[in-house]
């Protein structure tokens, strides 16, 4: 697998990007950039970024981009799509934005089958604010607010986002979980998600398993090992809901 070229839709002026070394956002956004290029939708795409590390992507693409508030990207993007259905609208957020502070928006957008695409990066912690426990923090995982490891009796189990969305969304929705460890597959999921919106089928949602070496305090090898081997024990990679493929 090799994608050396920079996506055409990237904004070169804002590169090198501002994410930490080894952060997974760059890979997720590369996959998205390639999809925008392949589908030829740079002129019709509106990109919404949440607060959290995703806020850094506000000038990442040569695509109209709105930086919103923490958790509120889903409604802003919904509002845009409802007002102008010709646009292809993508909400980009982290696990805190999607599963904690903005969970009601995610749940209800899925329930209404909004014709939008949500891409949610799961790195098991709040990166921007300094590595606190997120809804996705694994049992026993140490964070700044679970210094002795996440105690599931106290704080519950990791949120299974795509499973939740797949349970809520109805016919026409597309739901998948990809990983930055498999760019080709991730790109395919994101492409299908956006195509699903373009076809007017319904809500589309892709969770992206990603790494946060800065807050995990891991080196490159440990980071990839955690994404590929530890996270995938809880978060199963694959498609959960594909229109026309039965339930």
């Amino acid at each position: 697998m090799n994608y050396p070229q920079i996506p055409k839709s990237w904004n070169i002026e804002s590169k090198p990007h501002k994410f930490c070394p080894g952060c997974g956002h760059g890979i997720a956004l590369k996959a998205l950039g390639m999809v925008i290029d392949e589908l030829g939708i740079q002129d019709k795409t509106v990109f919404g970024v949440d607060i959290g590390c995703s806020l850094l992507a506000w000038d990442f693409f040569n695509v109209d981009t709105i930086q919103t508030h923490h958790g509120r990207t889903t409604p802003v993007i919904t509002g845009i799509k409802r007002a102008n259905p010709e646009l292809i609208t993508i909400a980009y957020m982290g696990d805190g934005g999607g599963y904690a502070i903005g969970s009601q928006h995610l749940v209800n957008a899925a329930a209404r089958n909004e014709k939008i695409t949500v891409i949610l990066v799961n790195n098991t912690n709040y990166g921007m604010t300094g590595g606190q426990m997120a809804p996705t923090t694994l049992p026993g995982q140490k964070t700044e607010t679970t210094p002795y490891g996440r105690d599931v009796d106290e704080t519950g189990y990791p949120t299974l986002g795509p499973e939740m969305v797949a349970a809520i969304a109805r016919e026409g929705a597309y739901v998948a979980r990809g990983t930055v460890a498999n760019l080709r597959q991730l790109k395919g999921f994101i492409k299908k998600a956006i195509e699903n919106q373009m076809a007017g089928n319904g809500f589309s949602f892709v969770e992206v398993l990603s790494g946060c070496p800065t807050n995990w305090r891991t080196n490159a090898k440990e980071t990839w090992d955690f994404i590929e081997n530890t996270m995938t024990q809880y978060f199963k990679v694959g498609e959960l809901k594909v229109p026309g493929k039965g339930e």
Partner: protein
Amino acid sequence: MANKPITGEQRVFMTGNEVIAYAAVMAEADIMYGYPITPQNEIMHYWTRLAPKYGKKFLQTEDELSAGFTTIGGVLAGRKAFTATAGPGNTLMQEPMSMAEMMRIPTLLIVQQRGGPSTATVIYSQQEVTMTTYGGNGEGFRIVYSTSSHQDLYDYVIKGFNTAWKYRFPTFILGDGYQAKMREACVMYDPAERGIELVKPTPYMGAPGTPGVDRKPSHMRNTYNTEEELYEVVMNLAKAYEAIIPEVVEFEELNAFEADTVIIAHGVVSRAAKGAVKELLAEGEKKVGYFRPITLRPLAVNELREIAQRAKKLIIAESSYGQLLKQIKEAIYGTDVEIHTILKPGVGITQEEIVAKYHEVK
């Protein structure tokens, strides 16, 4: 599909919420986003009945945060978008409205004030003045019209969309439960027939052409890295806001610049205040006047100072524990006019009470 629900001038007798829905259609609003809360619900009820007939849309959201942020989305897409709320819903609205303030997004929010704090009553108050003028983590770069009648509701909803899109500051119509639910007469009209030109919206996102190729991408942010960067942004907002104040400020008065005692009230209470002053003048009292700020943000500071410097006494009447009072005190800081008050949080104020207060303090 019919073009407009109103042609010519039509005297109607209906609730304020219904008037607002008609005004929004006549202002060429494209889409309403909303979440149920009393006493604004019927704005949504009437809008959803009218909207499909005139090619307009509605989305019922999961809460007021979403109603506010989807409204922002609608505006970003270049549509005249609006929402309506009250009380605890207005509290939630402050988050999206602070984003609109930072990014100069011309949202229109209609507030039908109910009792507070907390859930309180679903009936009436003037307790959302501070929140509507200065809510959110910002500086109050907003335009707030306080209406007092159904005619105001019709006029200022139409005007409010124009103000929002002309000046690009979030704009608010501050009504209340009485105005929402009562029936009274007003005249509806087609703004075009009165020579009112409606400002056309333009998209912030999704304009024609490929970003980075045919045009610059629209990259909008509200987060900044340094103190200095933010300072510059906020000072530019302040400068832009201050520049429009003279054009935006509105007030109504009666004998206010000649009187010894001036009664000040806004919104629906101004009706009782104006009635009281008319009654007193008719009874032969000469030194009484009435002043009503129509814009609570920006406030008519120059006029209030002039009055405070000339008059001996002010009587400030409001259905809150002093939210307008606080703003007036700030506006007239340094003058030594005597201030009297009728402060009735969440309760209506009658003309009789104001007349009695005048006799008590004059």
